[in-house]
């Protein structure tokens, strides 16, 4: 392999085969992918969840992860919060000419580690190389499928008055970690992105309860935007308690400095679950046993009044509306 990716690596010719064999198959290979036909062929039984996500994070390497890990976890989490067991992923790379081959290898290694941890397989993929300047280093698209138990119905439309809202841990870690390494506003912090596959956490939760009505991963737009989406889809209001929402000290400090609100900062390894009140404590206890749910907390309740709204009790005891994220307060983060 050359030490930089060349346009010819995306041409479909021998250099393309070179990159596929040396950088991809040798790391990600499995019995389905190795066939190298035009489509992956496999059997899947049951109700299928199918999702796709493109990743354009900048910088591509950040504390706690990189674009490879992010692109796998993002799709796994989108499947997981539907109650699906993720099985197979596709991986499509758009690479800028001149991209260092060793960086590609690092990214693909992260893809493998994240897929291994979650127990999913990369079964098909694509590589394109574009002229220098036509993409920013590397963009990755992943799509994935998972199987949902036949009787399960987890949806943003299912939140009901009286339900409890559980958050799986601290908010804002990913957005602030990425921001801390951005050119122009870089600052020193020990903080790492929370980027992680949540399928095992969800499996743990479903072991102890069948009364999980709705789950979401609060990525772009943060917790506030996710809660607003649920309130709107289900036609309910959500009352949350500021004191109960876990925020790391570093995140709170960075937000204060930059004028951001942690409620609107992206997460890549967190989920929000709306569950029947009688099962809330049991689900919470189970989540706390999982390494990705240590800091889980019950942060609020679903109510009827002010449907479509999210209202927060502040630490001062007053209340305020928490709206959707409007516009683009932050640079590209996922």
């Amino acid at each position, binding site marked *: 392999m050359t030490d930089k990716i060349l346009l010819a690596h995306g041409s479909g010719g021998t250099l393309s085969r070179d990159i596929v064999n040396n950088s991809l198959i040798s790391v990600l290979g499995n019995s389905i992918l190795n066939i190298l036909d035009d489509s992956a062929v496999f059997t899947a039984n049951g109700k299928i969840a199918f999702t796709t996500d493109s990743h354009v994070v900048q910088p591509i390497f950040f504390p706690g992860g990189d674009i490879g890990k992010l692109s796998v976890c993002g799709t796994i989490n989108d499947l997981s919060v539907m109650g699906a067991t993720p099985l197979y992923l596709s991986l499509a790379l758009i690479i800028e000419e001149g991209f260092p081959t060793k960086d590609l290898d690092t990214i693909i290694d992260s893809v493998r580690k994240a897929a291994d941890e979650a127990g999913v397989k990369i079964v098909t993929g694509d590589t394109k190389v574009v002229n220098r300047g036509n993409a920013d280093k590397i963009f990755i698209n992943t799509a994935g499928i998972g199987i949902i138990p036949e009787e399960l119905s987890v949806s943003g439309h299912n939140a009901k008055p009286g339900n409890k809202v559980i958050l799986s841990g601290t908010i804002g870690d990913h957005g602030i970690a990425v921001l801390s390494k951005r050119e*122009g*506003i870089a600052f020193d912090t020990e903080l790492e992105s929370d980027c992680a596959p949540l399928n095992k956490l969800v499996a743990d939760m479903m072991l102890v309860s069948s009364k999980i009505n709705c789950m979401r991963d609060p990525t772009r737009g943060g917790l506030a935007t996710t809660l607003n989406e649920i309130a709107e889809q289900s036609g309910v209001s959500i009352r949350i308690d500021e004191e109960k929402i876990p*925020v790391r*000290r570093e995140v*709170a*400090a960075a937000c*204060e400095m930059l*004028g951001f609100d942690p409620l609107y900062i992206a997460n890549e390894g967190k989920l929000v679950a709306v569950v029947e009140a009688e099962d809330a404590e049991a689900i919470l206890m189970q989540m706390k046993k999982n390494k990705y749910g240590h800091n889980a907390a019950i942060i609020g309740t679903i109510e009827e009044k002010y449907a479509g709204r999210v*209202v927060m009790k*502040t*630490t*001062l*005891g*007053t*209340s*305020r*509306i928490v*709206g959707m994220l*409007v*516009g683009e307060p932050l640079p590209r983060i996922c």
Partner: protein
Amino acid sequence: MKELSSFRQSDLAQGLVNSINRHATKEARFMEFCGSHTVAIMKNGLRQLLPPTLTLTSGPGCPVCVTANEDLDKAIALAKIPGIIVASFGDMIRVPGSSSNLQEAKASGSDVRVVYSPLDALQIARTNPGKPVVFIAVGFETTAPTVAASVLQAKQEGLKNYYILSMHKICPPVIRALLDSGEVNLQGLICPGHVSAVTGAKAWDFIPRDYGISCVVAGFEPLDILQCIDMLSEQAAKGEAKLEIAYRRSVTYEGNLTAQKIMEQVFEPSLTSWRGMGDVPDSGLKLKPEFAAYDAELKFDFDPGPTRIQKGCICGEVLRGVKTPSQCRLFRKICTPLNPVGPCMVSSEGSCSAHYHYGENND
């Protein structure tokens, strides 16, 4: 986190609220001049803690909001000059001028870059020696010193392609103009904390002296603001009007003398136009003649076109404290943060934006 939460403790807040209740026996209206105070008050729901005798009114202290359309039009016209790089604070690029904004100019091919500091704009000038770089200099006494420093730095380095479009404004003259207009009847003024850190509390001496209105300089945490309101209420109860500081960890009577000196070295007061208030003498800052080489307005030939004010928008009245955002018929209906008609909905410090994001029950 401790450093922050110590300013947000509910038991301390309750103590201050009890004290405010004891003092605020008579009707009184206080104005928070500064947009950051408006946001902190709305975001923390502080009005819910105050007795019905007290009314808080927002003032013109949002530098983006008070920038007049004619000035915005200049910035947009500059951005359209081929080959020029315009650097601006983020909020400014979405503010509508007479018929467009910097964001639209960017989408049409202008080179508009968002920076966090004028020193970033200076860096753009260093790395693009063949192109003129214009920094859109907006802000009160808080930002003017760093812009002045950037001009001095450019001069020292011999940079020939760095310019500023000065739309700076200073606060005391506009407060005087507001009080002279007699439109708002105030008993107290919550004085801006960050501006005062530079100017010193002395900048507000004239308000109790000439107008008999109490002044307290406040910080931006909920407890800072409650303490300030308590001090204003106590003055009102005693029939006093004096200047006090409730933000001693940042503000002194004399202020930051180095920052004041650097501002005076580079800028001189000028007549400038404020949205909603029109021309106010000596309330702007323009480059002194010896720094004319850095003045984008003198350097470039551009035509901002005729000025037009958005129909139905009451930002001007909101900025004067005469009306509240919910009294605007465009508010929440046509004017939203995604489709802002006036600047008070664009700026993160704008009253309309604060009411939109944090107001209860559609207020």
